């Protein structure tokens, strides 16, 4: 009994061995299924998988490019910062130099001014002294004349007197 079933097509032993209809049905059903699935299921699914692949590829590309761009910007910023720092250093340096120079200048000018004022003062003092000495001398001559005329009781000629007194004073100056 068991072995009956192991014979090919045992189920339909009483019919023809080959059922053409089954072959046709299998082929037609399978091919229709293939067609329908391709149109309604696998096609769209493959499409979306393809789309995802493309999306991922483009995303990776975009990330790569934005990474290089940000790297470039970073480098740019870094160099700008360096430049700015150098510039600032230079400005400070030049300001310092300029300050030094103007300090020197001011000091020199002040010193010159002081020297000039001092010289002027010395000159003026000399002049005044000369002037004062001359006045004193004049006064002394007049007084001496007056005193001598009182002592002598007589009027000496103006010429002779002056000569005499000048000599006296000169002698006195030498003695001094």
């Amino acid at each position: 009994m068991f072995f009956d079933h192991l014979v090919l097509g045992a189920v339909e032993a009483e019919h023809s061995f080959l059922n053409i209809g089954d072959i046709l049905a299998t082929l037609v059903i399978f091919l229709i299924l293939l067609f329908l699935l391709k149109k309604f299921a696998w096609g769209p699914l493959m499409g979306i998988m393809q789309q995802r692949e493309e999306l991922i590829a483009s995303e990776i590309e975009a990330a790569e490019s934005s990474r290089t761009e940000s790297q470039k910007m970073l480098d740019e910023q870094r160099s700008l910062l360096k430049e700015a720092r150098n510039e600032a250093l230079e400005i400070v340096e030049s300001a310092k130099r300029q300050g030094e120079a103007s300090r020197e200048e001011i000091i020199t000018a002040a010193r010159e001014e002081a020297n000039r004022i001092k010289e002027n003062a010395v000159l003026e003092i000399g002049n005044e002294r000369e002037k004062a000495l001359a006045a004193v001398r004049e006064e002394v001559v007049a007084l001496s004349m007056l005193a001598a005329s009182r002592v002598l009781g007589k009027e000496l000629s103006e010429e002779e007197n002056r000569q005499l007194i000048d000599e006296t004073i000169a002698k006195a100056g030498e003695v001094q």
Partner: protein
Amino acid sequence: MEHHLAPTFELFGITFNASNVLMLLIAAAIVFLIALVSTRNLKLKPTGMQNFMEWVMDFVKGIIKSNMDWKTGGSLHVLGITLLMFIFVANMLGLPFAIVVDGYLWWKSPTADPGVTLTLAAMIIILSNYYGIKAKGFGAYAKDFTQPMWFLTPIKIIEEFANTLTLGLRLYGNIYAGEILLSLLAGLATTGAVGFLAAVLPTLAWQGFSVFVGSIQAFIFVMLTMVYISHKVADDH
């Protein structure tokens, strides 16, 4: 296990097995529904059934890639997925139960019929020869039959038929044997309380094993399909 009859009918002078036609239609409908449901609302970020379908696609892609490069094998992707799903579902259909009405067997795996599996196998072999001619031209295709030695040509021709037979009968034998044993166990279960208790565990085990066999057979069928086609298409053999 009684000797079941096949519910045949004739149309335009051609004999059809109504049960085969019915089960093929059911299997095709289930595959189509699964595929349709899981590919609605396709998203770039896949969820749920779409994940499963994409896994199936990648699985078949892996099978194809292990046999030929994707450039020539890409067009077989759809065929591979459909074959895998269809044969798997067909194998599973006969597992939970069989329906016999008035001695006619109605519900069974369509792949438990040699006519069906041999048709699929023949389709694959014819397809492989077609792809061989298409890829290399008829001259190079015919020359392959004389390789590596001219006197092997008859064997090469026989090989085509042997491939058809082994491809179809392997699937048929595995599924048919599984159903035979299941119906024997079911017969045992209906003999009485003792028989029922005795049959529960073996039935459970055999059904689990049949799920495994059905999956493996679907995989092997697709794998061999790609192997045969790659033999015909590839240059170096």
